[in-house]
């Protein structure tokens, strides 16, 4: 008798696991958290603080002073700025990721001077 109970508990736990996996695969809209994680691609030149300035990667713009709107940010991240040494990211990031990144830059940096 208890063997059957153990069996059912076993099935129950397996089912519980697969239910959790089903929830995980539901499509989720791009969140601010995605953009923050993606910013590592930008941080090496634009710095973790977004202020840019010189580095071995060139002389990146200060994102806190950007005047670009969302569409323009998406365009720059997608195509890069070839003559100024900013690489393109269309080869490595999806459209959803680039949009999330642009949103993160607007929320985190744009128009917000660095507090000393």
């Amino acid at each position, binding site marked *: 008798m208890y063997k059957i109970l153990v069996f059912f508990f076993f099935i129950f736990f397996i089912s519980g696991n697969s239910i959790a996996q089903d929830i995980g695969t539901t499509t989720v809209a791009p969140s601010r958290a995605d953009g923050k994680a993606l910013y*590592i691609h930008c*941080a*090496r030149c634009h*710095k*973790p*603080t977004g202020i840019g*300035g*010189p*580095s*071995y*990667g*060139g*002389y990146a713009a200060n994102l806190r002073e950007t005047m670009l709107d969302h569409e323009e940010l998406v365009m720059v991240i997608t195509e890069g700025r*070839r*003559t*100024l*040494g900013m*690489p393109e990211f269309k*080869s*490595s990031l999806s459209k959803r990721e680039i949009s999330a990144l642009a949103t993160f830059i607007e929320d985190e940096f744009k128009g917000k001077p660095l507090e000393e």
Partner: protein
Amino acid sequence: MTNKIFRLFLTLMLFLMFGAANSIAGDVNQARLNDSENEPQNWIHHHGNYEAHRFSGLTDINKSNVADLKVAFTYAMGDIQGGGTAPIVFPFSGLEGTPIVEDGYMYVTTGWGRVTKLDVRGGKAVPLWSHNPEADKDYAPSVTCCGINNRGVALHGEKVVFKVIDGRMGALDKHDGSMIWEKQIADVGIAEVFTGAPLIVKNLAVTGMAGAEFGVRGWIAAHNVDNGDQVWKTYTIPGPGEPGHETWKDDYDAYKLGGGTTWVTGSYDPQLNIIVWGTANPGPDWDNAARPGDNLWTDSTIAVDADTGKFLWGFQHTPNDPYDYDSIAENTFVDGSINGQYVRSTIHANRNGFVYALDRTNGEPIWCTQFVKKLTWTAGLDENCRPVDYNPNVDVQTYAPGSAAGRGGVTESGARGAIEGISCPAHTGGKNWPPTAYSPHTGLYYIPVIESCNKAFAGIVNPGDWKPREWYLGGAPYFTFDDPASGRITGSVTSIDISTGTVRGKWETKFPMLGGILATGGGLVFTGTADGSVVALDDETLQELWRFETGSAINAPPMSYEAGGKQYIAIEVGLGGAWPQWFTDSTPELKSAVPSNVLYVFAL
């Protein structure tokens, strides 16, 4: 009674014999370091021997059988996580180290400075102990330009001498990894960091340091290997009153922030008792008008007395450098006939695209040769191996027109200079830190080449601009991939005939050479490519004889050892360093390279 005494005597003699033999085998002493060629089964020097030959005398793996070389075992080294905070964040750490092997025991380091001892006597890696220095993940990497790096340890007596990126050096007991001493030596508060391996000279642990992109003044220091006490410290930039200080012609102490760091391991000559070391770029890197004058001894090969650190001689490769052409590369000692004359030379392949032979007794040039395909910053070198485009009548050099960035009349602090430059080779070199190898059998010197150009602009630096732990570059390099003038960067292994100073051959590669080179008595040259292949070349023709694809990227030099009567080739495979962080725009395929931290060991 007599019988007992006799037996006691015999026991004592046996004990002394075996006890003594054990301590001779296990004790890395000066005699063994001086004559390391006598133990080809071991690799007890970072660069292979004191002369930095990176040559293994082992012959079991050779031209006739290398095609059968295969993976014997691997070891996952861990520590792949990144670190740093403003101004620099690294997404991951990589592997740039050379393993040390003694009597079937291997010592390896990760970029974070973890030291692991592996028992490799049985043809696999059995970890015996691991020392984690627990470097703070934010503080040091934020000010290390070029990766979370550690190029290896050194052995002395029964100690393993180690360094950590955060400026510590110390010694562990090689039997159990326990700490003997540890000292804070470099000042990370002003961006002095450690990335290279220490050099053991008699009872000294000698170390260089890094930080020339952050406005430091370079030095070499020697510490007592038994307790870490400082014995001597020599700045590479002479201070007021010292010879050479007059080549800093400003009146605002630019020399204090002038660079000339020393981040690759030097070489030692036991007979002359000198240490020869290469120095890095002056700072600020690109705004050379901020530091008028030749800026001795930046971009130089220098020799110091091993006991006192006293400066003996220097040779500067690129005076008042506007290109970031470090001269930190290893110095390879070759004794023999060059152009018909016996000489004790030091050979050095420079970032600036020229390879030099100097007389290491006095620093006088013997020959100098271009080793890159394209070189535009000077029309050539004169009979003293000085750039022909050097202008002795000015304090700020521009070299070949169009090659150097410059202020062009702009003086406002932080503003962009009016003149941009395109220079070949790129500031990455030429040849960067990945080391060369020399074969005494072929008489050839093998250089891992970065065939390259880059653009650069100057950013005006005025007195008072410097802030601790901030970039002090005076401009920046950049690549515009679509522009053929400064676009794709490729590579090669280039061989140089030391006796004549001429280029013998070139094995070209799609990507820059970011690994390092090993030459062997089996007639082979081993290296690893940026796209992850370990290869063996014929040491005369450079024909490719064997290749193994790891699927990652290689940023470390190969070495060879013998254990259990079998020869092995070992190489650390792990993308890291400066290239993936800053320069992949010139090698776009490398953007998708996969980080890994694995030691690969090959055998027949």
